[in-house]
């Protein structure tokens, strides 16, 4: 959108606060707090949010995965759920509809699959070197694990199949 840099003659303050300037740059940032539990917890929370933000951005750029992930639960609920509800082939406790009986299980299954998939993705990231780079930032290891499955998981499983 704003392509300020190329046309701007040198000296015009188009992009102030450029990094690479160790002095002011660092003083502009809050100091790394002493490693109190509270500070550590806050950092963890902030990093989890950041990494969630990244995952959401990725989904925004490429929604195919969102759809492919939605296919399986949709298949289960619409095809099997509907069918078995109609034909009453499987006895359910309290004679609730089979669809209702099935739905929580499908939800759990989706969540599990997504968690597994994103767990595998950490391995891919390790191979690609992305993980290494993240580990050199002030990010607690726990955040790298914790952040992965949560946002896309939420985004996906909250999506009506």
């Amino acid at each position, binding site marked *: 959108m704003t392509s300020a840099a190329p046309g701007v003659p040198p000296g015009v303050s188009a992009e102030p606060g450029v990094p690479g300037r160790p002095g002011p740059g660092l003083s502009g940032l809050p100091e790394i707090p002493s490693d109190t539990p509270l500070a550590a917890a806050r950092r963890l929370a902030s990093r989890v949010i*950041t990494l969630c933000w990244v995952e959401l951005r990725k989904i925004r750029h490429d929604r195919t995965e969102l759809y492919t992930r939605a296919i399986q639960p949709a298949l289960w609920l619409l095809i099997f759920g509907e069918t078995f509800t109609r034909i009453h082939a499987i006895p359910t406790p309290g004679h609730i509809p089979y669809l209702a009986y099935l739905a929580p299980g499908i939800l759990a299954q989706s969540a599990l699959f997504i968690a597994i998939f994103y767990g595998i993705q950490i391995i891919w990231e390790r191979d690609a070197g992305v993980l290494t780079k993240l580990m050199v930032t002030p990010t607690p290891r726990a955040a790298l694990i914790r952040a992965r499955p949560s946002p896309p998981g939420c985004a996906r499983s909250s999506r009506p199949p």
Partner: protein
Amino acid sequence: MSPQPDASPVSGGGPVSESAVAVGHAGPADTAPGDSLTDGSTSGDSSGDSSGSAVRCAGLTYRFGDHVAVDRVDLEIGRGETFGLLGPNGAGKTTTIRMLTTLLKPAAGTVKVFGTEAAAYPMRVRRMIGYVPQLLSADATLTGQENVELFARLFDVPRQIRKQRVDGALAAMGLTEPSRRLVKTYSGGMIRRLELAQALVSAPRLLVLDEPTVGLDPIARSDVWDYIAGLRESAPITVLMTTHYMDEADTYCDRVSLMHAGSIRVTGTPGMLKAVLGSGATLDDVFRHYTGGTLDAETEKGGIRDVRRARRTARRLG
């Protein structure tokens, strides 16, 4: 594929990044516009380091099983220096860097980065480091701008100045134009520059470059170096890098260390090292002189991993 078109609108990396950084220097975001250099060097240090060195390793050792990858390395890098770590594959350069960047815990010895011990305070050390790994590792499924913003967030760049910083870092690397595109569409040289932007957005005091130009074509290579050199001119940032290209080390490093089989064989300015071997010697000769003979027998240990890594990088580029 060629990175040149991206660089052309900003008429070369040097001047733009220079002016941009100079502006940033007096920018409103900075709390102390006056004496920024000394401000930075005092505010960052929790444990007062009168030593004045950016990095100090003492007796640094690391073992992979029985194989001693890094053997009692002593290293001192001054502030504002560009320091090159040279050596054949498997010499222990990357392992040393991994210990320096808190990715590995040294088996013995200490690393101090601006006076802070890496093993004891990894978070503080990570805050001061900008790291560009050997592999091209920007996230291909995000845009360039998002890649940089991720790192700004991870380094707690305050929200008010975040956008400014991100745009500034991208501009300094000549990536303003393609910053909205997915990184998938970038060329190798552009990804490298993007990674530099990522490393720089947090205004690190130490920039660690692990073979920044491996797998790049000659034009992209010199391009990347132009940007690094321009950055160095405008800001007193300390740079630690490894490379296999002796000409790069010769041109861009203030001092180099030659590593071989886990230990440092010689340290000095490129000119000094060449002078030892007599006039007309190149850094290649120096390299051969200190590593030659035993090279064939020794490289095999680290060789396969390196080759595999290089191939992976090549695949990503191709």
